[in-house]
């Protein structure tokens, strides 16, 4: 950690720059919004022109697949014309700034994930939750404690018991540093009273490969990351962070049923820029209702092993603010932010 002073200097400088950048963005957006409003005095039924889904990750991967399915079904079920625009980068900040620089008219819809709150809490995303109207959480996936079939651990208690006696001995890892999966492990550590290191990986697929290749002893990962191996029994899930057993994984026990109060999921959903008028938001919600009611969507969710939280704006926003608070605490305690 000898670079911490450098990092701190970088952060203050960075924060100032970010403030300047976001101020500029807001100013531009304000002007743009004002022109857009004055240009359309009488609004007809939304949408009057093609809508852009701004996906804040690159092509390929779970978020992009969700965004593209949503686009397909919005065209099919709601009769919209939809364009998918991948804006990867900056842990989501690039996608968010893309939304921030467009008018708040609902024609640019951000497709984002629960890493939003981690990004904000870590100071990586220079925006606030209030810069968005969070419209709907449509998918969610839990984390799980996974080991290989030949591992001696058969339950969460086996794992926790071993870790208590041999602190830091096992190689435990998962996707990203200071993200959702590490947060879940951190909560398990607190409840189980053990110490564990964390081996971060820069892509979720690499976690599965590391587990299969025995470069990790245990992983915290979304079950669908190693779907083939979970199905075939090659990977055993000791605990899943859902409240009840998932219908997709009836054989995988939850943490809750083993006496650990550990629940959490990473959501995927849509948001628009703050200030988007209520009638436009209502039109978007109606269109989303049509999508979620369709058979195509239900089949897609099942095939993808996705839970459907279907939180609308109020509940979604409440949940996100709660996540942000809890995660900020974790990041401070774990030393990721001062």
């Amino acid at each position, binding site marked *: 950690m000898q*670079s911490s002073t450098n990092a701190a200097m*970088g952060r203050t*400088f*960075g*924060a*100032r*720059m*970010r403030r300047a950048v976001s101020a500029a963005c807001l100013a531009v957006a304000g002007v743009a919004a004002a022109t857009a409003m004055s240009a359309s005095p009488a609004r007809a039924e939304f949408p009057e022109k093609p809508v852009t889904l701004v996906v804040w990750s*690159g*092509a*390929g*991967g779970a978020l*992009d*697949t969700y965004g*593209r*399915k949503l686009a*397909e079904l919005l065209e099919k079920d709601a009769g919209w014309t939809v364009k*998918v*625009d*991948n*804006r*990867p*980068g*900056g*842990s989501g*900040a*690039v996608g968010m700034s893309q939304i921030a620089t467009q008018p708040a008219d609902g024609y640019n819809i951000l497709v984002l994930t629960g890493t939003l709150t981690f990004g904000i809490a870590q100071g*990586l*995303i220079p925006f606030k939750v209030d810069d968005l109207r969070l419209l709907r959480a449509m998918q969610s996936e839990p984390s799980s404690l996974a080991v290989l079939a030949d591992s001696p651990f058969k339950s969460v208690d086996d794992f926790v018991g071993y870790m208590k006696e041999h602190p*830091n001995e096992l190689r435990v*890892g998962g996707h990203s*540093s*200071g993200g959702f999966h590490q947060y879940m492990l951190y909560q398990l550590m607190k409840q189980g009273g053990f110490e564990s*290191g*964390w*081996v*971060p*990986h*820069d*892509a979720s*697929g*690499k976690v*599965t*490969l*590391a587990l*299969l*290749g025995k*470069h*990790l002893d245990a992983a915290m990962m979304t079950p669908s*990351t*190693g779907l*083939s*191996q979970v*199905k*075939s029994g090659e990977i055993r899930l000791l605990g899943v962070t859902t409240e009840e057993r998932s219908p997709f994984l009836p054989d995988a026990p939850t943490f809750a049923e083993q006496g650990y109060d550990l629940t959490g999921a990473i959501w995927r959903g849509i948001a628009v820029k703050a200030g988007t008028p209520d009638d436009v938001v209502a039109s978007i919600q109606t269109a989303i209702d049509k999508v979620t009611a369709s058979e195509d969507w239900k*089949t*897609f969710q099942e*095939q*993808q092993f996705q839970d459907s939280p279907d939180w609308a704006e109020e509940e979604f926003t409440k949940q996100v603010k709660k996540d942000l608070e809890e995660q900020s605490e974790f990041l401070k305690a774990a030393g*990721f932010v001062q």
Partner: protein
Amino acid sequence: MDGIAQSLGIIFSLGGLGVLFIGALLGIVVGALPGLGPSIGLSLLIPFTYSMSPELSMLLMISLYVSAEYGGSISAILLSTPGTAAAAATAIDGYAMSQKGRANEAISISLTASTIGGILGGLALLLLAMPLAALALSFGPAGYFAVGLFGLTSVAALSGGSLIKGLLCAALGLALATVGIDPIAGTPRFTFGHFELYEGVPFLAALIGLFAVSEAFALAEKHARGQGMDKSGVGHVFMSLGLWRETWRSMLSGSVIGTLLGILPGVGGNIACWVARDYARARSKGSEAFGAGAPNGVAAPEAANNATVGGALVPMLALGVPGSPTTAIMMGALIMHGLHPGPQLFAEQPALVYAILLGVILAAVVQYIVGSIFLPVLARTVLLPDGVIAAGILCFAVLGAYAIRNLMFDVWLTMGFGVLGYMMKKFSFPVAPVILAMVLGYLIESNYRTALVSSRGDYTVFVTDPISVLFLLLSLASILVPIWRAWGPRGRTARRVSA
């Protein structure tokens, strides 16, 4: 065996052959344009594949993927602007050949080598998918670190006249690779508050800037001074027997290297092309001027970058885990059709799996046919005046830079790299080591640190992991062998020629 028969039925239907040819044509074009690589090509295709059967959509995507890996070399050879990252190694000897009036030969070598690489990579996927997947799993962080280090030893071969200059440029590349979010601590480094830099300096911006933009400046300057380069058209794409005899070994070694590195997630064609070139150079007896237009300097990297396609599909098909951004997009397309790639797909959808496996091989053949028809036409671009070419390169460079992430930030960065590359050319600093070090820097650093986190700070992990030991020894050999040769009796002549 029903699966094979069924899949052949699909491939040799009108629709099957149709999508293979369309994919090859599109692939060559997106490959040849700097910045538009296979990933962007595939993501543009996705919406069109919704209404196709899964088999046809996979054939289309594979054909585009294979040909895009090849297409990158056309612009690399003719204009010194590699269309894809994996064609960067080809630009060195390929462009040197075309400046000597041997463009026709260079193009024919690259098309033939790419086809052979594609076929051999496809055969490896067809026959050895499971053992290759097991091999990929045996690479831990220590192993990846050693592979990266091994790749870095080829800097010496890219240094041109002065090893010091080569090392300086490599150091610059490694320094650039440290920009971005720290892979272990998760905090941003050297980003100066620009969130555009969290994922690091975009590698494509450096590639397009250092190779393409700088070459456009140099061409414009030459044009202004009236020093045109030798123009040579491309008449046909068939290799002479002499060239075959000269390059077939490099094609084979390149294919093997490409397949093996292709199976490793995060390694792939961007690194395989350099390793294959370096291997071919080390094997040549010093009689050939690598860097000044050696046919083997085109054959080896071209075979390697196409062979990585077969390799990259190994983790996706055998394990259900995508090994590269491009295969992640293909996997996304399969998921859209309600299918999950993985070992169980062999039992559930044999026709689809065999269509993919055989598709790789056939796509390479189709690429050869499409290439041999269109290349003589495409290659006419070099006959244009230098000023026009320079303007054209700049246009496509800006387009490609913007296409990376749809950010103007990347365009300015690319222009900055262009100016840097132009100045480096003026002072005869080689640009290739910067690119190589940027590709490898992140791989080496993140895996070095992951290995140490996993071992809780125990450095012996690098000598107890057999794969790590193997590649560390290879690295040592690739540093020591040239030194030993330089001290040997033939040393002085060899040194002068390879410079």
